[in-house]
């Protein structure tokens, strides 16, 4: 078979990109070695935030939120702007966040510093006894990774995209610097354009194409947890505590409390959930909301943060191979960024340019030793 | 489908099926003294009847074989009735125009000697009345199962396998 563009990786980035490309009239095929979303997307923490600390990420996330809103309405999946609430415990933290808020405000993100009392109004079950302030942006939000991904995939297919599940890229055929096709477990697909959207497995795809530059993306195990369902609406925003092990938590559509902490292992492809995590996440949850101690933990699971040295993804074209693109290494932000990344990359592929600050994510920056300011890696 | 024996479709064994499974004792033998009758036509891994028999009257080639009683060796001691986990052993003794059937009884109340009880056949139908003539209570039974001997008309001997105790 033949396809103009082949996207390797059927996670949120792969399917939103397929959707954007299909909308632009491109003929595109997505290869997914298991089922869509199975890699990291369905394992993510569901949060979508604009509270970053650098201009590029704030701009990209602002656009992403606009797109999340637009597409959730158009395609009919749940996305809610329930806000992100960063709990702050000392003056140092407050000072840092004030600086961030200023930047965010300048770029049109309405974050503000609020009092512990105001925080408790937003989430009444919070223990604010140690909290001195909170950074609150009501326009941040969350979406259901499962319904979002399947909605984008279905819509992409309607527009003519092919999504091949249980189809694994085994090799990439490059002749004289030109892409000829992808070998899969189900046969050969001829193509001239490949997008590496394999995130945690991106380095394997890069190796298949023998790209001549170093793009350090390594898989790190991160875990998530969910509790028994509670009546909806009790913990609406994503609540974050950097003090308590970078914990994040929120309530899902189904009523369970979902979240995680910064317990990280890697680089590794092992996804065994750990005892350490389940204890650390319980500790953090109870510190933030003591009554969560009574809640039953139903499940934990693990997924990958595909990390780069500066926690910013590598997005762009690899010049030496005609035509090879990469959008990987999201370091835990793939889900939230996906719609903006898809738009940015679709424009890049079809028009050769984009209005979004793609240069920030330049895949050559590692080779050149020009790391970015480390992105705030957080749920 | 036709290979399924009737007793596995219905959950009880007919006299004809029983006769195919074991040879029944002669009338002469039935009159001599009580004799053990196993109603155990299916191969299951079970051997207590063979192990407990004081005269090695219960024959079993291997632990899964069905028990065959050597009626000449059987002394009518009732230990097999007491121990059998499947409650599948009975004893029959013809005395005059009556038959005495010994059977396990793991229900409450346990009848008393001399008490009149309702006789039940293999499908629980009431087929007559009989008189309890001996009771081995649970405490004295080698298998923790009370056993009772009930006297009844001789023609019911091969039908009755349980009793119902009715008290006002």
């Amino acid at each position, binding site marked *: 078979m033949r396809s103009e563009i082949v996207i390797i990786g059927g996670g949120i980035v792969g399917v939103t990109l397929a959707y954007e490309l299909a909308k632009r009239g491109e003929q595109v095929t997505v290869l997914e070695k298991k089922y869509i979303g199975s890699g990291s997307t*369905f394992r993510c923490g569901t949060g979508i935030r604009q509270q970053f600390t650098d201009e590029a990420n704030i701009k990209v996330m602002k656009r992403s939120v606009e797109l999340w809103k637009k597409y959730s309405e158009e395609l009919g999946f749940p996305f809610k702007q329930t806000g992100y609430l960063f709990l702050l415990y000392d003056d140092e933290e407050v000072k840092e966040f004030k600086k961030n808020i200023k930047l965010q405000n300048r770029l049109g993100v309405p974050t503000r510093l609020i009092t512990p009392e105001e925080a408790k109004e937003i989430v009444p079950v919070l223990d604010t006894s140690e909290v001195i302030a909170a950074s609150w942006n009501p326009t941040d939000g969350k979406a259901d990774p499962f319904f979002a991904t399947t909605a984008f995939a279905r819509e992409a297919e309607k527009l003519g995209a092919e999504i091949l599940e249980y189809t694994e890229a085994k090799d990439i055929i490059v002749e004289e610097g030109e892409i000829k096709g992808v070998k899969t477990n189900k046969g050969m697909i001829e193509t001239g354009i490949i997008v590496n959207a394999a995130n945690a497995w991106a380095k394997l795809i890069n190796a298949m194409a023998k790209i001549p530059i170093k793009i350090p993306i390594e898989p790190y195990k991160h875990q998530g947890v969910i509790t028994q369902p509670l009546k909806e609406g009790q913990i609406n925003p994503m609540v974050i505590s950097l003090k308590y092990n970078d914990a994040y938590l929120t309530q899902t559509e189904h009523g369970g409390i979902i979240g995680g902490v910064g317990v990280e292992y890697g680089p590794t492809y092992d996804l065994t959930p750990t005892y350490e995590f389940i204890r650390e996440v319980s500790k953090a949850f109870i510190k933030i909301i003591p009554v969560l101690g009574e809640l039953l*933990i139903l499940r*934990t699971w693990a997924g990958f943060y595909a990390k780069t040295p500066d926690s910013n993804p590598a997005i762009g074209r690899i010049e030496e191979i005609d035509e090879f693109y990469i959008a990987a290494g999201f370091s835990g932000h793939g889900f939230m960024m996906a719609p903006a990344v898809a738009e940015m990359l679709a424009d890049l592929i079809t028009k050769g340019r984009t209005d979004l600050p793609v240069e920030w994510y330049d895949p050559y920056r590692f080779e050149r030793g020009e790391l970015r300011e480390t992105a705030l890696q957080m749920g | 489908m036709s290979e399924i024996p009737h007793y596995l479709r219905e959950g009880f064994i007919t006299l004809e099926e029983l006769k195919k499974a074991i040879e029944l004792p002669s009338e002469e033998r039935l009159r001599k003294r009580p004799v053990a009758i196993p109603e155990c036509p299916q191969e299951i891994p079970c051997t207590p009847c063979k192990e407990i028999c004081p005269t090695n009257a219960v024959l079993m080639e291997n632990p899964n074989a069905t028990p065959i009683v050597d009626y000449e060796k059987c002394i009518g001691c009732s230990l097999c009735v007491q121990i059998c986990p499947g409650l599948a052993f009975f004893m029959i003794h013809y005395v005059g125009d009556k038959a005495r059937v010994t059977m396990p009884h793991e229900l409450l109340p346990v009848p008393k000697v001399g008490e009149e009880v309702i006789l039940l056949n293999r499908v629980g139908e009431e087929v007559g009345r009989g008189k309890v003539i001996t009771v081995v209570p649970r405490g004295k039974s080698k298998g923790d199962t009370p056993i009772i001997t009930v006297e009844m008309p001789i023609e019911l001997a091969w039908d009755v396998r349980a009793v119902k105790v009715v008290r006002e």
Partner: protein
Amino acid sequence: MRNKKNIIICRCNEVTQEEIEALIDQGVTDIEMIKRLLRIGMGPCQGRTCLPMVISILARKTGRRPNEIKLPATRIPVRPVPAGVLVGEMESDGNEE
């Protein structure tokens, strides 16, 4: 003869046989997708009651053998535990003042 709307397969999330079969008829035959779409096996019983029934419905409707359907992963904890117990909280009656 049977009203499949009234046959509960997953008690925790109240999923009926009708809903499962309708989804399979739509072409969703991956147990992982069925699980996520209907939230089967994601309740407090952790799939103990429903998953075997889902596997057999799926096998029957797709003509697959049950051993071709991969059992979804078993995650820790294998039975629900209060978060407070996991941190080694002291024995207490919980939230009573």
